[in-house]
């Protein structure tokens, strides 16, 4: 059966149109009805998902990919900028995944945000975010990617600070743009380097013209950008702080889509990154450190959403490690698998928190498996997928990554850290299941526990299908872009599984009666270290603003006001003039000594002139 190439373009343009149509309509129509979100936005995203399946099927069956270049923004003699879309392996797979997850989250949000007076605006923000994300993943030039990059950043800031009446919800969103801005500096540097050296921002042209260039500086800029957006170590505190926002925001932005934008950028630029061994090593080490550090933090936190946030950061570290192994397709596979089970975990957490009357502390939960069986089951499936339980979705990507690590030539410490992170993932997953779902109830007696609402259950059911089968579908239907190592010793092959089982056994021992006797207060220093995120936010978030604000105040007050405008300006005139005035007026006092002095000085001068 023959499909013309225009089918691919048309379906994807229709997808974008379906998403933008409700937004455009809301600008021109009368005040929106209260059910606008349910009647316009959710069906639009659902429709866009089904439409986006056609290009995916065409890609899987016929290998059809396309680059579409349309309207020209700027056309100079040497530099062109146009609106261009790249519908390739990555964008054709990610778009339906993102739309599927968004559809589920929007349906959940119609229940979660039903009491919010500005629900329509909330859905509008989510829709704008989704459009920006699709612009980012389908961009064929870096300028367009940057537009999507900034778009997702702005919407994330607006959505995290949704409940602006609370001081914490006002303060914590500011961490997100401040950390992202540091990353954006790296991206802008890379853009500037490519514009000046390669004269183009089109990806095809950049990759073709790489020969002969030292690409390490722009690649470092890209890595900084990815570190900011994807919460790598050093720019990671914004991710747990972002949990102040509503749970649908955490599920969509801070687990499935926005946080992976940094990794996606590195995947897109992988032909450039692989030319710089130093950059690959940096990605490997940074990712391993992030993965292990955030997994340690997840072990000691008690806020359900924060633990899941740290888990997200740990998986992002793993994706960065995969980039460092020069396996971008594996990183992309993990992005897709991670989107399913992590979004589901966040929706489960939202349902649990709502059922317990807003309680987020896992120490005050328990025995929910009887009262919310569906949510509990989905929660368990999600955490098992996260640990890499064989043949769930997480297994196909995570196991492949660990195999690639153990069969590669790489930094030993990075390998050790990643294996530790894998074990810790199993430990905190078991810890979550134990505290949240078993054994005895520790919550308030009268709570609105219930999951009979289909708007809660249907999204969870949809995502659990993805968490169970997506891995199998993806690996059966889509060929890997690089050939994996086929032969290895059985120990290497089973490393991921053995490490996960070890973590599970350690966690089970801790929750057993014999292990429960070990108190955390016996080891206060490591516990403090991880529960305070390595003291990094405390030190950096207090020192940096204090120094900059103090210097700013000193500069404005003393340097500018007192020095430039007083000491060097008007006062300097008086200060410099005063000695001259004093000397001159001293000489005009009419003293005989002064007259005699000048007489003899003049006489000496005349004599010397006559003699010489």
């Amino acid at each position, binding site marked *: 059966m023959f499909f013309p190439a225009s089918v691919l373009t048309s379906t994807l343009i229709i997808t974008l149109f379906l998403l933008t149509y409700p937004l455009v309509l809301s600008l021109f129509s009368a005040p929106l009805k209260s059910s606008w979100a349910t009647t316009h936005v959710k069906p639009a995203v659902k429709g866009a998902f089904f439409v986006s399946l056609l290009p995916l099927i065409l890609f899987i069956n016929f290998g059809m990919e396309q680059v579409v270049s349309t309207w020209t923004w700027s056309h100079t003699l040497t530099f062109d900028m146009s609106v261009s879309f790249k519908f390739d392996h990555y964008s054709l797979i990610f778009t339906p995944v993102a739309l599927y997850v968004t559809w589920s989250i929007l349906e959940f949000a119609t229940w979660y945000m039903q009491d919010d007076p500005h629900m329509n605006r909330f859905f509008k923000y989510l829709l704008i975010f989704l459009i920006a994300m699709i612009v980012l993943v389908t961009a064929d030039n870096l300028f367009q990617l940057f537009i999507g990059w900034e778009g997702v950043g702005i919407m994330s800031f607006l959505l995290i600070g949704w409940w602006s009446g609370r*001081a914490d919800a*006002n*303060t914590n969103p*500011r961490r997100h743009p401040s950390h992202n801005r540091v990353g954006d500096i790296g991206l802008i540097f890379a853009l500037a380097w490519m514009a000046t050296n390669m004269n183009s921002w089109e990806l095809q042209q950049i990759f073709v013209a790489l020969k002969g260039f030292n690409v390490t500086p722009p690649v470092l800029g890209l890595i900084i950008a990815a570190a900011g957006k994807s919460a790598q170590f050093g720019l990671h505190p914004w991710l747990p702080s972002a949990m102040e926002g509503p749970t649908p925001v955490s599920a969509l932005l801070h687990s499935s889509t926005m946080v992976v934008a940094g990794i996606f950028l590195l995947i897109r630029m992988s032909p450039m990154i692989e030319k710089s061994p130093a950059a690959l*090593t940096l990605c490997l*080490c940074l990712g391993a*450190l992030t993965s292990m550090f955030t997994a340690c933090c997840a072990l000691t936190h008690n806020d359900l959403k924060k633990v899941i946030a740290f888990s997200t950061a740990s998986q992002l570290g793993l994706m960065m490690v995969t980039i460092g192994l020069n396996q971008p397709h594996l990183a992309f596979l993990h992005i897709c698998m991670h989107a399913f089970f992590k979004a589901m975990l966040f929706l489960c957490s939202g349902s649990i928190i709502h059922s317990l009357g807003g309680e987020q502390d896992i120490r005050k939960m328990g025995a929910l498996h009887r009262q919310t069986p569906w949510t509990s089951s989905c929660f368990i499936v999600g955490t098992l997928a996260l640990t890499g339980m064989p043949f769930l979705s997480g297994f196909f990507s995570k196991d492949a990554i660990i195999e690639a690590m*153990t*069969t*590669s*030539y*790489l*930094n*030993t*410490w*990075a*390998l*050790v850290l990643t294996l530790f992170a894998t074990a810790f993932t199993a430990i905190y997953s078991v810890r979550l299941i134990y505290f949240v779902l078993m054994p005895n109830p520790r919550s308030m007696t009268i709570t609105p526990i219930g999951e009979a609402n289909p708007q809660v259950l249907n999204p969870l059911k949809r995502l659990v299908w993805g968490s169970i089968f997506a891995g199998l579908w993806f690996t059966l239907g889509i060929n890997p872009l690089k050939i994996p190592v086929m032969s*290895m010793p059985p120990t*290497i092959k089973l490393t991921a599984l053995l490490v996960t089982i070890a973590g599970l056994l350690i966690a089970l021992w801790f929750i057993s009666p014999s292990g429960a006797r070990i108190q955390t207060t016996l080891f206060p*220093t490591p516990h*403090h*270290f991880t529960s*305070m995120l*390595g*003291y*990094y936010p*405390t*030190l950096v*978030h*207090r020192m940096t*603003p*204090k120094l900059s*604000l*103090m210097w700013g*105040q000193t500069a404005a*007050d*003393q340097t500018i*006001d*007192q020095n430039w405008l007083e000491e060097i300006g008007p006062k300097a005139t008086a200060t410099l003039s005063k000695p001259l005035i004093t000397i001159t007026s001293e000489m005009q006092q009419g003293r005989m000594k002064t007259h005699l002095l000048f007489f003899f000085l003049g006489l000496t001068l005349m004599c010397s002139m006559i003699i010489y």
Partner: protein
Amino acid sequence: MAGVGFRRWAQALSRGKGSGLSALLPGCRAASGGSKADLPSSYPLTPEAKAAAAKKYNMRVEDYKPYPNQGEGYGDYPKLPDKSQQERDPWYQWDHPDLRRNWGEPMHWNFDMFTRNRVDTSPSSMSWSSMCKTMFGFIGFMMFMFYVGEQFPSYQPVAPKQYPYNNLYLENGGDPEKAPEEVVNYKI
């Protein structure tokens, strides 16, 4: 306050300076509250000046302490402790709950730095030096271990690929008439 302001405005108007708007404006300015005496002045040199400054800033004399007189321009403004608003009691019924401040309280010189959205000076469970040592020690340890990991990398042992039939002699275009050189891949 409103009554005092109105009285000043009426007095300014009754002085009859100018007409119309030019009479109204000084009156409005007089009604805006606060006089020149409420503004910060020079460094208090005598105990009486200190007491007057303390009263001006709505503080007790024993609590009032000006900035050192080093020509930095602080005048008689009180030197308040460098504590952020985040440290204040969240459950107290403040006049301004978001600022955690009561009306009439003296404001810190750097009050904009110590709002709840900015620098937080709340006490931490560990001292600043301990936190610095631990964090930088951790980062230093990681850097060192990454360096060691680069010196001793992890890899699977590899060897040159071995082919059968005397290293595929015929397939590589070897002369079938000649006896091929025997290739021994391994010995047992």
